[in-house]
């Protein structure tokens, strides 16, 4: 229950008088306000700044420092005020929380200082209002990430003694700064990647002429040298790959990772070339395979942070790029079609088919304009000019927009996810608050019963166990209790509801029950089927016999309107002797009992709200003896 509406609780309780004439049973006693004092102003001195507020304002949240008796520790007798040696700025927010029920997070405040203050005053940060919650969570996450980074870098400097050889190797591979050996390895591989790439390039350059033959590329002139270089590089790469494979914590994941695929693709051509002899058929394919050697350049991405970031950016903006491509394709097709039909008439036109026009359109739209295909008709020229103008628009303009879109959409997605997550969290909070409040009532009901039963047995020390609810809560629960009485129904939680549904649908009468009941088959109230209520008169003589049962029984008494003074299946009478049963709690009662046997032993005690007749203390002392076999009859 929101504390803001705690102010309206007296009103709601007063309005409960509207239920009284309707109810057929007496109402439970109201919780007494034992320490009723006049509301007073209290002074809170926080580091010299004085705040004043009413006592009841602070008592709205009894589980915080200011709302409970914990603040008495800070009471200064000389000045008659509560002194806190804390930050007054944050205290302002804290006190506003008590006043308005909403906790705000000031933007200028440091997140960890704020968290500390909240922890000091016993306030959970989760109740920050929705207006400030997003900001709070953002700052908190940033802070946590920063802490994590700090911890990581700290950890990296420490030596972790208990790492296995394999783990050290993996760390060396991933982070070259850990040891000199790793650094050496890092530079060596980098060097060989560079050598390999340069050899691939130089291989194709025509090196001087051998006298007597045409110009040869260097690769063929110094083929042995290049082959040796290639072999050396591939050796290094293979060794590196195998070492990484060995050191990887999860080999399966490593094999699937992009870098390892690049590694494999980089060294495969060499081995395939070794395996394949100079077979003329496959030599063409072999040549193609050499192209893949250029992929070795991608191995540099391990050495370059920038390359990795670029790759990641492209990956994350894949959808935007895809859309750009899609719209370009649309425009290309449109213009190619138009140009084809426009140029169809002209003689010796290069626009032989629509796909042939694609080339013209692409060249024109990207403003390249090679000039190998030009339109000759007037219509073709008009459409061609429109094509080039629109090419500028389609390509050149969105590029900066897309670049800025990248960051905007990226952050927007993050915020949308955040909001979705927070929405779930918000709904969950509301649900939790609701169930919390209703659960609190059910819980305290049970506790209350326990309390009163214990009170009756006169064990004072156990009485105090249950007195943890605040006055406001007990008043609220009293209100709900009155409602239960008015309608003769009880609040239960969902699980019990399901349980009762299931059990009443498959319930059977206990044979030990009074035979008069078994002759009335239509007694049970099932949740699924409605039967006509039959009334039964339970003879008093049967009741004492049913008092002590080995099986737990829960009987409810549903009350109808007419007079039946002899019906004594009120709860108190079940515990009393039969002759004492002439004082039902609900006088006007023609009672139908629905008996549902629940084999589990609930530690239920009789509800204490009955006004025990003066003779009761005697019989009620039986309660402890039958505490484990208590018949709970809620005489509603």
């Amino acid at each position, binding site marked *: 229950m929101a504390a803001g509406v705690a102010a309206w609780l007296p009103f709601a309780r007063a309005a409960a008088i509207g239920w*009284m004439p309707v109810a057929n049973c007496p109402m439970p006693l109201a919780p007494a306000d034992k320490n*009723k004092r006049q509301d007073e102003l209290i002074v809170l001195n926080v580091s010299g700044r004085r705040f004043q507020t009413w006592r009841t304002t602070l008592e709205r949240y009894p589980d915080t420092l200011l709302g409970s008796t914990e603040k008495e520790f800070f009471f200064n007798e000389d000045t008659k005020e509560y002194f806190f040696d804390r930050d007054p700025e944050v205290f302002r927010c804290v006190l506003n929380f008590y006043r308005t029920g909403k906790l705000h997070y000031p933007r200028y405040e440091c997140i960890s200082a704020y968290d500390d203050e909240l922890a000091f005053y016993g306030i959970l940060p989760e109740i920050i209002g929705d207006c400030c919650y997003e900001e709070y969570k953002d700052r908190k996450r940033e802070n946590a990430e920063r802490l994590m980074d700090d911890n990581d870098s700290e950890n990296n400097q420490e030596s972790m003694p208990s790492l296995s050889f394999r783990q050290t190797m993996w760390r060396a591979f991933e982070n070259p700064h850990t040891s000199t050996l790793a650094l050496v390895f890092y530079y060596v591989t980098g060097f060989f990647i560079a050598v390999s790439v340069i050899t691939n390039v130089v291989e194709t350059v025509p090196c001087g002429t051998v006298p007597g033959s045409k110009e040869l590329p260097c690769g063929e002139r110094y083929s042995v040298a290049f082959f040796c270089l290639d072999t050396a590089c591939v050796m290094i790469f293979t060794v590196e790959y195998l070492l990484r494979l060995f050191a990887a914590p999860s080999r399966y994941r490593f094999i699937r990772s992009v870098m390892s695929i690049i590694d494999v693709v980089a060294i495969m051509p060499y081995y395939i070339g070794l395996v394949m002899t100079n077979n003329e058929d496959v030599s063409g394919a072999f040549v193609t395979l050499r192209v893949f050697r250029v992929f070795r350049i991608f191995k540099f991405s391990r050495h370059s942070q920038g390359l990795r970031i670029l790759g990641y950016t492209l990956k994350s903006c894949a959808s935007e790029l895809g859309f750009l491509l899609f719209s370009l394709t649309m425009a290309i097709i449109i213009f190619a079609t138009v140009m084809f039909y426009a140029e*169809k008439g002209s003689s010796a036109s290069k626009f032989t088919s629509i796909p042939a026009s694609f080339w013209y359109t692409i060249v024109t739209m990207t403003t390249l304009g090679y000039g190998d295909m030009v339109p000759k008709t007037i219509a073709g020229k008009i459409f061609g000019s429109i094509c080039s103008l629109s090419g500028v628009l389609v390509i050149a303009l969105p590029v900066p927009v897309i670049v800025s879109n990248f960051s905007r959409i990226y952050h927007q997605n993050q915020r949308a996810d955040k909001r979705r997550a927070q929405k779930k969290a918000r709904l969950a909070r509301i649900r939790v608050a609701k169930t919390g409040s*209703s659960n609190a009532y059910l819980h305290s009901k049970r506790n209350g019963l326990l309390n009163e039963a214990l009170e009756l047995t006169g064990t004072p020390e156990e009485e105090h166990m249950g007195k943890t609810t605040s006055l406001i809560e007990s008043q609220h629960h009293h209100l709900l209790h009155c409602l239960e009485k008015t309608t003769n129904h009880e609040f239960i939680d969902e699980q019990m509801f399901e349980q009762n549904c299931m059990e009443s649908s498959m319930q059977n009468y206990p044979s030990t029950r009074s035979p008069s009941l078994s002759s009335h088959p239509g007694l049970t109230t099932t949740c699924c089927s409605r039967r006509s209520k039959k009334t039964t008169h339970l003879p008093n003589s049967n009741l004492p016999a049913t008092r002590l049962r080995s099986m737990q029984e829960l009987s409810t008494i549903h009350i109808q*309107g007419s007079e039946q003074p002899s019906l004594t299946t009120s709860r108190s009478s079940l515990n009393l002797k039969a002759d004492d049963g002439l004082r039902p709690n609900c006088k006007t009662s023609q009672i139908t009992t629905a008996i549902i046997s629940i084999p589990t032993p609930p530690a239920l005690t009789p509800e204490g709200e009955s006004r025990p007749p003066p003779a009761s203390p005697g019989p009620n002392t039986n309660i402890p003896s039958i505490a484990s076999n208590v018949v709970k009859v809620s005489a509603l």
Partner: protein
Amino acid sequence: MGIQGMELCAMAVVVLLFIAVLKQFGILEPISMEDSSDSELELSTVRHQPEGLDQLQAQTKFTKKELQSLYRGFKNECPTGLVDEDTFKLIYTQFFPQGDATTYAHFLFNAFDADGNGAIHFEDFVVGLSILLRGTVHEKLKWAFNLYDINKDGYITKEEMLAIMKSIYDMMGRHTYPILREDAPAEHVERFFEKMDRNQDGVVTIEEFLETCQKDENIMSSMQLFENVI
């Protein structure tokens, strides 16, 4: 067709583009409707100030301090000084998380809103509370009768009572023990009428109501229950 057609299309496209360019220069103004945006004056939220403390003290049975603390709580929740029905429902439903208290809140609102203007002022609030908490049993019963009598004609009919009863049972929600049956409110109404309606004419008048309630011990004792709420 063929070349002629394409050239025609080209001409058409050129003309269209020309018009678009001209529009930009403002030469060819399309006739556009000027939407006179009436800046709707937001009706400033009605504020209400209660009568003076002394007058309220004369009208009710509360002490000055009690009135002060009541007003503080009231004003905190409703800074404008009056509660409309939706706010009232919102506040009241928070006390009954398991069920639906909106219908009963509606009836309650009507009972408190003595002058029927759709909003509860602090005076209505405090006068109502005074009756409920500090009034005689007679006054409280009259208040309850007023609550049940939805159309304020002096008679409680079965339909009115059924509506009230349903709204009370609605507040219990679904998860009740025993299972709430469909005809439970109706039955309750039947029992109520059997008890209250002396002359069996199908309506309960204020006299019948007062008479029956004053004879009923339970009701009389429960009326005293909320004496010490404030």
